[in-house]
């Protein structure tokens, strides 16, 4: 394991890693939205439970609201309608508030989550011989700057030459730099002002985890703050599978799409209309079956 060779990178690999980075980044952004959604849902559920334990009444209220929106004057004539609808709209406020709160909470807590992961999952990665995890004293400026970065993607360790970063007031070394689960590392597009001319770019040590090698390149601004991390190597499993998650469990599998021809009994796909069907593989299979052929494709 100590003599693990650095993998050869070809253009396909680079293209794939770029694509996976984009995917992982999109995924992270969407995950925040999903978190907000779940919180909205639970707020909605609890609100519904508070006001009524009867899901049918809640449904009736929703239908009523629908009707009222279509025809405000007509539904106003119905006794009870107005109160049901206004209850409904009152219930929406806490849910919306919760959504905004959840978004804030999720932004605030991801850094903590990454740190937690570093502590709770120290065995997820192993060091290559000769490559050292950045030391806390040496990396003080990087550590401080990396905390928000790691909050987005469990940043891989970067060895920072002392000369590359001007001395900064020593910040307490957060464990977040040692997050080992840098899987398909994402490029970090930090929201910082355009970099000043005197940026410094350093390459991190090659770091090995369960799935392969990780190496990142960090760019520091003139004041020593981390402004970008780019991925130079990402882990693969036999050239096709790579973990796209950072610290999230469970793990999704990702690979390149291929087009196959094979004998099948039936085809799953979105053929919403009869016109879609006429052009579909399922239609060909049905025709073949009608003609007495066992399977087709």
């Amino acid at each position: 394991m100590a003599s693990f060779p650095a993998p050869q990178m070809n253009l396909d690999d680079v293209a794939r890693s770029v694509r996976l980075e984009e995917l992982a980044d999109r995924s992270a952004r969407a995950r925040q939205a999903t978190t907000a959604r779940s919180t909205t849902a639970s707020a909605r559920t609890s609100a519904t439970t508070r006001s009524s334990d009867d899901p049918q009444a809640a449904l009736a209220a929703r239908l009523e609201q629908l009707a009222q929106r279509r025809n405000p004057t007509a539904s106003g004539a119905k006794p009870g309608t107005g109160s049901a609808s206004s209850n409904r709209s009152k219930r929406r406020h806490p849910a919306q508030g919760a959504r905004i709160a959840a978004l804030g909470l999720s932004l605030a807590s991801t850094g903590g989550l990454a740190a937690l992961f570093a502590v709770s999952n120290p065995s997820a990665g192993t060091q290559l011989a000769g490559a050292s995890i950045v030391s806390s004293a040496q990396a003080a400026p990087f550590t401080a700057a990396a905390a928000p970065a790691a909050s987005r993607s469990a940043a891989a360790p970067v060895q920072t030459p002392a000369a590359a970063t001007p001395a900064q007031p020593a910040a307490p070394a957060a464990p977040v730099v040692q997050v080992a689960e840098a899987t398909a590392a994402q490029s970090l597009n930090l929201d910082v002002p355009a970099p000043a001319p005197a940026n410094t770019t350093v390459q991190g040590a090659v770091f090995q985890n369960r799935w392969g090698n990780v190496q990142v390149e960090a760019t520091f601004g003139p004041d020593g703050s981390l402004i970008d991390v780019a991925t130079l190597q990402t882990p693969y499993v036999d050239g096709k599978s790579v973990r796209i998650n950072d610290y999230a469990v469970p793990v999704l599998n990702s690979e390149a799409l291929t087009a196959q021809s094979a004998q099948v009994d039936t085809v799953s796909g979105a053929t919403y209309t009869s016109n879609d069907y006429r052009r579909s593989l399922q239609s060909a299979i049905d025709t073949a079956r009608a003609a007495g052929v066992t399977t087709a494709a």
Partner: protein
Amino acid sequence: MTGYHHVEHVMGMAVSIDVRDDGDGASDPGSLAEVVSWLHHVDQTFSTYIEDSPITRLGRGEIDLDAVSDEVRDILLLCEQLRDDTGGAFDAFAAPAPNDTMLDPSGVVKGWSIERAAELLERHGHANFTINAGGDIALRGRPAAAAPWRVGIRHPDQADKMAAVLEITGSIGVATSATYERGAHIVDPHTGQPTTELASVTVIGPDLTLADAYATAVFVMGVPGLEWLTGHAGYDGYAITHDATTISTPGFGRWRVESETVPG
């Protein structure tokens, strides 16, 4: 040979019924007639294209919940449960329906009606069949002794090719939500805008009703929707992004057959 194969055009799509039982030789024409009649009943009841269907009238506020049948009420209650479960990614009240109302339970009606149709066939003693309704499939048993059903997942860009092949035996549902070349038309209830992250989502699990609804919800949620799906025991998902990457839940591999042909 009492097996049969029939394609019924109903609910605006093709429903392929493929019964493989050779059983004890008794013929059973009644099961097909019953299934066909059931599918047309569902169409008349839940169609958002038919002017006087109960769903259209309910959506227009012409009738209320007390005036509809138990099955309509149960479907709408299921829609509300799914809305809570999916954090609003599935919402029957979110997007304009073809009948110009904001009530459209279609995302669950198709899977549910096919699952019920499969139960109908089972009550007639059939144990080995598939019903494929516009790409959503209820499977039972096997196609032949010792053989699994082989189910292709359509390639998003090549209608005559498959992105993956599954092998299935027993009682399983497979549903796919996709946009393909027709452009984005699945709406995110939170934004009212079409969702665009994924080209196709397939969900497999024990109940086609839920597999159908989950496929719609994951399509709206995007990649994180697959993580959400892993919280639903027995269900697995497979998504294809617009940049030709496939993403699947950890359990999806148990269904999947390794690619047998050269990528092309």
